[in-house]
């Protein structure tokens, strides 16, 4: 039969190309990491997603970094000095070379800053750096940055500024650089099989702590159950994004273990005070009293996450202890709902997207229903969810579940965009809170900032435009022999990992 012959020819053709690809197998010489998707890009300035920065942060050095304790630490910059409220000077290491052998100079730092802050370049990360208005090499090994005003979160943002080699980017252009990135980091780019894997090789000439693995491979494994199976079968050493059930599965495995860490991500409920029933502050307060955060964490999330009373986590600048926030008290919630009367019965739309844990959203719905509110879950895809969430008070859903991370560990990146009237995310209008948020942004004096944020936290606790829920944990799966301490900022630095003997 001719059709059969055709099929066989097709299969043979396919099989031939299959042999061209070497299999990935974990071993001591090579670390195999399973990500969810492949990196969308390895040019550190043109995207913003974890699967990309897990990889490229090993190829590139950042101006600054965070140590394992979470403190801002030197990397390409060895020290920095505030010259004025709007000027800061960094001293640049003089012993760093890019993977092509050329020396890293202050010019490269200046180039990296101007590249990412150029609106025409169109970096998704523009908003993280656009307070920087100028960068210049002020000496043989110094760089001066100018900001458009005092900007207290600058150092926290520069932790994410990757330094790219000016001579390479200018010579090969954006597209070629994306496909064959050249950095100065502890690992160098070896190859990228699209859709399959990115291979890195150790940079033996690295100026800092060298990697322990001669090579590393990052693969795309979209299904979490498969990432677990790969760890159990020993075909991978590290897998990202597991849930508590999968962590329990790994605990009983002889080859792999779960590694959990509390991140800077805060889960929260956002209320729209311009829509009924939340135009009534008592009904908003009822929500704060109705939600049993401990119950969510123990009953649904497997106990890895941690309840927070304010809209931050302990790893943020601006975290304050002792803010009096509503605690779980269903009786009080019921009383508040009863007091509001018929107005409290208006239908509440609880907006969510598939990326969030729907068990949490359903539990919240149940808790709110139990105290007498009328909640309906509205699920939409992430793009629509985000668009609507930032569309202003008239169209923002009356209630939404979300998880926030500014990747900067600073209150300015969390409560400013969620509350200040200038932000699309804010559905809340409070002049006092706006003034405090502006004041905290306009001074470099940390004690003044914290005092202002404390007042904002108190306003949030009383007025309830937000209900902070918990500090999110992320769970990795790792081979038993792998030694690694994951950090709250969701980075994956290969040169901070090792094999246990």
């Amino acid at each position, binding site marked *: *039969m*001719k*059709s059969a012959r055709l*099929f*066989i020819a*097709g*299969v043979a*053709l*396919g*099989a031939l190309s*299959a*042999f061209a*690809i070497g*299999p*990935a*197998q974990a071993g001591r010489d090579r670390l195999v990491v399973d990500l969810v*998707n492949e990196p*969308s*890009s390895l*040019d550190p300035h*043109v995207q*913003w997603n974890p699967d990309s920065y897990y990889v490229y942060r090993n190829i590139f050095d950042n101006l600054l970094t965070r140590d394992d304790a979470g403190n801002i630490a030197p990397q390409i910059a060895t020290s920095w000095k505030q010259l004025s409220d709007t000027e800061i000077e960094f001293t640049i290491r003089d012993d760093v070379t890019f993977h092509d052998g050329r020396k890293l100079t202050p010019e490269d730092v200046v180039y990296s800053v101007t590249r990412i802050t150029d609106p*025409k*370049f*169109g970096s*998704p990360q*523009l*908003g*993280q750096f*656009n307070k920087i208005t100028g960068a210049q090499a002020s000496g043989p090994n110094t760089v001066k940055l100018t900001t458009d005003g005092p900007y207290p979160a600058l150092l926290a943002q520069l932790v994410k500024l990757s330094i790219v080699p000016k001579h390479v980017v200018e010579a090969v252009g954006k*597209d070629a650089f*994306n496909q064959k990135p050249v950095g100065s980091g502890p690992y160098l780019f070896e190859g990228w*099989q*699209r*859709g*399959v894997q990115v291979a890195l090789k150790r940079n033996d000439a690295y100026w800092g702590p060298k990697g322990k693995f001669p090579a590393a491979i990052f693969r*795309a*494994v*979209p*299904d979490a159950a*498969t990432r677990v*199976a*790969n760890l159990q*079968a020993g*075909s991978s050493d590290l897998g990202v994004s597991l849930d508590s059930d999968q962590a329990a599965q790994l605990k009983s495995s002889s080859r792999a273990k779960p590694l959990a860490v509390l991140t800077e991500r805060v889960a929260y409920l956002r209320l729209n005070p311009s829509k009924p029933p939340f135009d009534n502050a008592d009904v908003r307060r009822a929500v704060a009293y109705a939600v049993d955060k401990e119950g969510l964490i123990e009953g649904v999330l497997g106990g890895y996450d941690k309840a927070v009373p304010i809209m931050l986590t302990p790893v943020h600048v601006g975290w304050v202890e002792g803010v009096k926030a509503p605690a779980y008290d269903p009786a009080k919630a019921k009383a508040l709902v009863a007091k509001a009367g018929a107005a409290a019965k208006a239908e509440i739309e609880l907006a969510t997207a598939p990326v969030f844990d729907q068990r949490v959203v359903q539990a919240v719905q149940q808790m709110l229903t139990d105290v007498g509110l009328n909640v309906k879950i509205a699920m939409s*895809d*992430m*793009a629509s969810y*985000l*668009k609507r969430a*930032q569309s202003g008070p008239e169209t923002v859903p009356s209630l939404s579940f979300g998880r926030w*991370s*500014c*990747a900067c560990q600073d209150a300015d*990146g969390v409560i400013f*965009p969620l509350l200040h009237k*200038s*932000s*699309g*995310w804010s559905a809340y209008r409070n002049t006092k809170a706006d003034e405090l948020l502006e004041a905290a942004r306009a001074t470099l004096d940390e004690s003044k900032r914290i005092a202002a944020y404390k007042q904002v936290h108190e306003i949030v606790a009383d007025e309830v435009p937000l209900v902070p829920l918990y500090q999110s944990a992320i769970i990795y799966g790792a081979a038993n022999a792998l030694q690694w301490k994951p950090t709250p900022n969701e980075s994956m630095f290969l040169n901070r990992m090792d094999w246990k003997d």
Partner: protein
Amino acid sequence: MRSFLLRRLGQAVVTLFGVATLIFFLQRLTGDPTYLLVPETATPADIEAMRRTLGFDRPLIVQYLSFLADLARFDLGRSVVQNVPVSTIIASRVPYTLMLAGGALLVACGIGIPVGIALALWRENPVSRALAGLVLAAQSMPTFWSGILMIMVFAVTLRWLPPSSTGGVEHLIMPSIALGLLSMATFARITRTALLDELSKDYVRTARARGASRRWILVRHLARNAAIPVITVAALEISNLLAGAVIVETVFAWPGLGQVTVQSILARDFLVVQGVVLLGAFVTIGLNVLADILYSIVDPRIRLDGVAR
């Protein structure tokens, strides 16, 4: 023959144009990728700037015309997420999709057709009944379950096969079975029905009366005649296998087109989705034309130009 091909070609171009238009506007109705590309802290101005860079701020009709203009030059555009040409993304995925579809088809035909023949020839035999039950059970298992089950048994417990990803032929075995099981029952059923239809026809009775052996009848007469519906189904199943491998590709981390399509839909990576859909339409139309041509080879009475001989 030539006029037939020309007519089909014209139809194909019109259909492709329709598909391109439909997918372009359908996607634009579903939202905007910009929000997914920027960090949460991006201000409305940042988002607007990003949208301008991507060209999504232009009027829809302008975007549509430029899309058609590019398409006429066989340029599928660039992925806004991955910053590479769509053709590069598709080209890197097609070999894997073909491999998987080929493997699955081998499983589906290799088991489905013999089972169908057995079911037709030995209807009352308990063995063929048991086979029918097995085929049905295999088709009824959802892939995300049978796939993970296979991984747990053959990769984690027995360690015979690699659990996922690509590499040598051993990586292709489990995904092919998981995907092939779905079409197997279709092949078995169609083969059985086609054979039974033919068995009851006069020419078979005549051949038997003439004293031809059962084997001779099967090979000489039945196989050719019964092959026609099987070819039709194969053409449909290939398009199904090419399109329906999303779950298998996800479970086995197999970098095929289905996986990249779903990821691109979720990321609103319009141009990649358009590219894949157009490719899908192209392949489906192509396979149907091919099936028409195969009919005429298997059964010369079917004339492509519609003129009686």
